[in-house]
């Protein structure tokens, strides 16, 4: 069998036909949506009733059965203690972070858990938000596989632009647990802009106002000839439509306590009041008033709410979003008059008061022609296709929050300011303050405030093995890199001795490697074989790369080899092909290594020829394509 030969640099994945579909997933606080783009056509994947929304709600039955979505949400009324909702609010959060939220969350926290990631107690189980999110993603994956009729194993998953590093890592971990390879984490507003930009071929500056169930994001993007450049982004990872439900629920519970003369409020009452609050909010988006009943343990209370009262309850939250919009405009040095359009995203933008206030602030009617619940998933699906098949569009995103390190006195020194285009790498030099000091603690934080304790602690690590020197003599260069997913890695190097330090960043609120390994073992569908499949796939991609590279070299410089040498290389190539097709990971690695050895002399002769040609005055620019940016963008 011959492998398909492709243009250099156009290598597709080996066994492309074996690969499952790549989808776009909007993993929301309240609802999740999945969409797929094939051949430029995007479809939102729906259930039998035509609904795109999968409620991000998971019920953990006493018998170990896990239900997700609409069925789980129904349980919320009958069996609230087995149900987890709005778990996205806890992604990447520590125990201390959620203390402030205690009482307002519709589930019980494991108070015993110390440090690290927060844990929930449901139906006798202790669960991390990552595991609950993985359960949601499994249901999303199942919906997509049912709709498409084939396996789905890769996805673009959207996150709020304002998600910090810990929350992004947690999302990626959840996908891994659910058996999904994350092609890219894309910011929700950017995905929404992608969905609009492609439809409208718009150019200029756009604002994306994204008010979801639990998060608020505002992003300013410039769209130009298929490039989506994020200029500035801001928001609040704990502000959303849920807050409106809470405000109504609190008002109802206060009424109820008064009318029934009760003092204590049970968790069941909170959950039902929240569900009623949501219904009231949705109802008041269309009607001027309504009446609702809350009935628990045979005790019924009646609650009346009119639009005016609701809007007074909602106003503080909406004003907060407007303040954040203003801040982002200031950050970017952009006036309201420079904005060409405002895009509305998120179910909470259905509230008429929100639309009115946004229109008033930006001085124009916002765009909402794509369903605000589905627009993010549509953008994610488009990006999934762009990443796997290719595309003319390009997303250029930024860091949402400044990254810094703790210095003397608990003051933050910013290393990467917010709104810096990613990927980015920046280095900072440190020195020792004691003679012979051989280790140093580095504390990485994320946030805009001056003091460490007002920022989010991302990681602490010890840089050890510093050679003994006088105080101030060591020069330790710490490099902070943020990749295209917005994830941070840190590396360090001592400049005087050149000693490179392996730095493992242990996220303050993430899962440890052990915990992750344990969870992967626990999850029945994807345990060892998941890891092995991944490693085999990587080895194959790498082997195909070297296969094509050698073929390309033979085509250009084959005349440097004798017939026997050519035959030997061809044999090695065939060996690699066979291993890619039939072999396990070791076979592939061995065959690739053998090819490398077999082509060593060939490579030397090619270099010699190149140098001879250069000495003979031939331009070396024929030896590689240095692009002219303007040409390729035309």
């Amino acid at each position: 069998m011959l492998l398909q030969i492709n243009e250099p640099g156009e290598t597709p994945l080996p066994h492309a036909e074996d690969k499952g579909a790549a989808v776009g997933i909007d993993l929301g606080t309240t609802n999740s949506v999945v969409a797929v783009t094939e051949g430029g056509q995007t479809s939102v994947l729906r259930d039998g009733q035509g609904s795109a929304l999968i409620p991000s709600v998971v019920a953990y039955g006493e018998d170990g059965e896990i239900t997700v979505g609409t069925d789980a949400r129904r349980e919320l009324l009958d069996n609230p203690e087995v149900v987890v909702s709005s778990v996205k609010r806890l992604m990447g959060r520590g125990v201390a972070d959620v203390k402030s939220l205690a009482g307002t969350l519709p589930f019980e926290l494991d108070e015993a858990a110390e440090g690290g990631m927060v844990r929930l107690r449901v139906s006798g189980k202790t669960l991390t938000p990552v595991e609950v999110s993985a359960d949601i993603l499994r249901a999303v994956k199942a919906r997509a596989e049912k709709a498409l009729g084939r396996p789905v194993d890769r996805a673009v998953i959207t996150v709020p632009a304002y998600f910090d590093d810990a929350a992004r890592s947690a999302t990626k971990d959840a996908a891994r647990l659910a058996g999904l390879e994350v092609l890219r984490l894309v910011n929700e507003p950017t995905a929404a802009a992608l969905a609009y930009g492609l439809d409208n071929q718009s150019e200029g500056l756009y604002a994306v106002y994204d008010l979801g169930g639990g998060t608020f994001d505002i992003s300013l993007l410039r769209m130009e000839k298929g490039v989506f450049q994020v200029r500035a982004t801001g928001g609040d990872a704990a502000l959303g439509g849920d807050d409106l439900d809470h405000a109504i629920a609190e008002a109802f519970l206060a009424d109820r306590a008064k009318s029934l003369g009760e003092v204590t409020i049970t968790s069941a009452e909170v959950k039902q009041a929240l569900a009623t609050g949501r219904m009231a909010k949705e109802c008041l988006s269309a009607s001027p008033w309504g009446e609702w009943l809350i009935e628990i343990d045979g005790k019924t209370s009646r609650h009346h709410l009119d639009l005016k009262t609701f809007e007074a309850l909602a106003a503080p939250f909406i004003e907060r979003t407007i303040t954040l919009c203003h801040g982002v405009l200031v950050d970017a040095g952009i006036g309201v008059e420079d904005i060409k359009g405002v895009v509305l995203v998120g179910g909470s933008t259905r509230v008429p008061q929100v639309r009115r206030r946004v229109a008033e602030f930006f001085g124009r009617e916002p765009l909402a022609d794509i369903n605000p619940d589905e627009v993010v998933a549509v953008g994610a699906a488009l990006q999934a296709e762009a990443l796997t098949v290719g595309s003319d569009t390009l997303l250029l995103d930024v860091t949402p929050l400044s990254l810094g390190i703790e210095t003397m006195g608990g003051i933050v020194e910013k290393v990467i300011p917010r709104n810096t285009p990613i990927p980015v790498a920046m280095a900072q030099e440190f020195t020792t303050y004691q003679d012979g000091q051989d280790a140093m603690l580095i504390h990485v934080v994320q946030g805009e405030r001056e003091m460490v304790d007002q920022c989010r602690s991302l990681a602490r690590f010890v840089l050890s093995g510093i050679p003994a020197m006088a105080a101030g003599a060591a020069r330790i260069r710490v490099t902070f890199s943020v990749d295209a997913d917005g994830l941070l890695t840190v590396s360090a190097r001592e400049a005087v001795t050149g000693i490179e330090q392996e730095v493992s960043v242990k996220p303050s609120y993430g899962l440890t490697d052990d915990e992750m390994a344990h969870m992967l073992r626990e999850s029945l569908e994807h345990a060892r074989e998941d890891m092995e499949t991944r490693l085999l796939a990587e080895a194959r991609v790498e082997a195909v790369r070297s296969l094509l590279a050698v073929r390309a070299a033979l085509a250009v410089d084959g005349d440097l080899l004798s017939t026997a040498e050519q035959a030997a290389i061809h044999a090695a190539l065939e060996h690699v092909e066979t291993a890619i097709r039939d072999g396990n990971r070791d076979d592939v690695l061995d065959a690739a290594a053998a090819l490398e050895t077999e082509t060593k002399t060939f490579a030397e002769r090619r270099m010699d020829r190149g140098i001879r040609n250069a000495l003979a005055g031939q331009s070396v620019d024929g030896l590689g394509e240095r692009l002219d940016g303007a040409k390729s963008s035309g």
Partner: protein
Amino acid sequence: MFMSEFDQATTSGAIVPCWSCKGPISPRALFCATCGAVQPPGNIDHFSRLGLRSGYAIDPALLDRQYFGFQRRLHPDRFATRSPKEKALSQSQATALNEAYETLKDPLKRAAYLLRLAGRSVDIEQAATVTDPELLMEAMEMREALAEADTLEEITVLAAQAEAEVALCEGSLNEAFATEDLDAAGRATTRLKYLGKLAEEARSRKNRMTRPGI
């Protein structure tokens, strides 16, 4: 304004092996001509990286066009299904492009960078001591005026004044670099740093007074 073909040919003599097919390539190549593999970003100046002629005067639209054009080919999104090594190299390339773009886009960073290329150092991050008495006087006066201003009108006037001074200063920087007067360029860069800070302070005070909500 682009680097012409011969500019690059005459400045790069050495030949390096492509990491993928091991064949000879120019150290400045982005992709190997033989096997098409993306190459490491290499150590070149920000202007060359974006295919621009070195100099203070920059057409922002051209800078954007060049930056977008290079990112279109080198951004990690173009390598999402490639081998880990190619992904890593594309990330380094995109990182280098972002650094070049961020430096050249900003008038102050661009000036400091040009001075650094010319072997002069102006530290725009640290609060260096001002030795120029005239600048010291000017900065103090403007700061005082800003501290005393308490109505929106007064602050708006001061903010506009500071912006105008910034624009003038950028003009004189342009002139200094064009005539290769590096002493003047150094002084103007320090001045631009202070003016920029003042303008920002005035702007943020103005914004605080006009901010909606609480």
